[in-house]
């Protein structure tokens, strides 16, 4: 199944792209999707963190970092690190 990944702010710089499509085995969880993304884009480890250095969203709703929610075709994950400029 294919899901869409959106990278915001620093995540976009680290991944080098605004969005990507990920091909995952059926029934994959959000946590597994994140692990796969970290393998594909190792620089993202900078914003990974133990407790959370960024907000994750699934279909525009907050997603717990270790959520075991099963993903489905067409889901959209957003990786949103904080920005602090002003």
């Amino acid at each position, binding site marked *: 199944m294919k899901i869409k990944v959106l990278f*915001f*702010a*620093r995540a976009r*710089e*680290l991944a080098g792209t*605004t969005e990507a499509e990920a091909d995952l085995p059926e029934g994959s969880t959000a946590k597994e999707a994140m692990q796969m993304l970290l393998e594909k884009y190792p*620089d993202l480890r*900078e*914003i990974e*963190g*133990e*407790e*959370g*250095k*960024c*907000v994750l*969203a699934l279909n*525009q*709703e*907050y997603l*717990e970092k270790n959520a075991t929610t099963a993903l489905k075709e067409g889901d959209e994950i*957003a990786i*949103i*690190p*904080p*920005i*602090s*400029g*002003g």
Partner: protein
Amino acid sequence: MGRIERGGQRAHRQTGQQPNIIHFHRVSTSSEPYESCSRTSTQTVGQDDARVNWEGTEHQLTKEQVVRYSRQIILPSFGAQAQSRLCNSSVLIIGAGGLGSPVAMYLAAAGVGRLGIADRDAVELNNLHRQIAHRESTVGIHKCDSAGLTCRSINSSIQVEMYKDGFNQQIAMELASCFDVIVDATDNAPSRYLISDACVLAGKPLVSGAAIGTDGQLTVYNHGPDGPCYRCLFPEAPEPQSCSSCSDAGVLGVVPGIIGSLQALEAIKLASGVGRPLSRSLLLFDALAGRFTTVKLRQRMPSCIVCGTSPRITAESLLSYSYATFTGAPSHDAGPAPLELLAPIQRVTAAELHKWVTSDSVSIVDVRPEAQFSIAHIPGSTNLPFSEAKPQAFDEHIELMRQRVRDAAIDTGDDSLHPAVCVVCRRGNDSQRVVDLLVANGVNDVVDLAGGLEAWARESGVDFPHY
């Protein structure tokens, strides 16, 4: 409105006690309804007459206020009572920069009764493309004075207070307590955590905005029974290199303008009790795509160390908490501290380099990003960008550098008294990293320009822009 009055009185008491809190009161001579924040009525003696014929209404607006704010008072979803609440409210704006400028100007225009402005910097020329509360005529002047001047010129009937030492730990609780709504318009991570913590402890809603490059973010923290705070969303501080500053990463001027305008809107909604505040929602703005996205956020996190069930940060411990240690970053946007990676012998001063350039006996490699190289560079230099975030990307240039050193050594002759290649960058940090990397790869006979092109602009005697 009792809370405001108490807070206001505390703020006024402080004026005499703490020199670091500077209250700036009305300078205008027009008849203002606000003599102090402890007043319960907005009427002054002279204005009672103006209300004689319309007693019985439920608002406290004067005739002058009705005229001034009529275009939003006649709005069915706003009305006289919301305007009256706004006129009796107080908002603290922390940061009078790109975000704080539109916040201060719109809140002054909309008639927020008491505006606090906290900042500690002076206006610089490179602020003016985005910090629209400041003027060419106020470059060099404290941002509080400059923004205060603008607010007063828009609306002389409101009260403006200035906190010229910024929002620091010593006054955080006191300040957060004496305003109804707090607006975070700062530019760094430690301040954002401090402001959020103080708002939780003082029980105040926080309108938080941020902008960098072409990205913007906006949300309201600590509002309602389940609204999260900044730490609920970001319990771990970002790496310092994740927090680009406007001075390093750049910012398209209108982006903080848009986010700041939205912050003003949220502050008006909270202060007037109109509409639904952007609590538990994070608004993301992508300026290049022209797209706004809203993400629904979590509730308050029970394990949060400040707003959770067993908090570790309290009003007392906040004073000794090290925000700089927690975030690994200083609480200002002053660019990175100078690095000391190379030995003095591996470095060259701007004056020395100028001599070598004049005698055409050195080859210069400029490792800044292309956008900065295109602003200005030393004639004849080559641009091979290096990024601290992605040092491995420079590996492909190492062979090129080896070749460059070889060629330059031939050009300058074996009897040359100085190294053949000089690496330059903006401030002299990245250039040290590159020389270090080259030496580690066996490429010697390379030095860097100490202090970077900022030192070159100051000390070489050559006309070169400082940016």
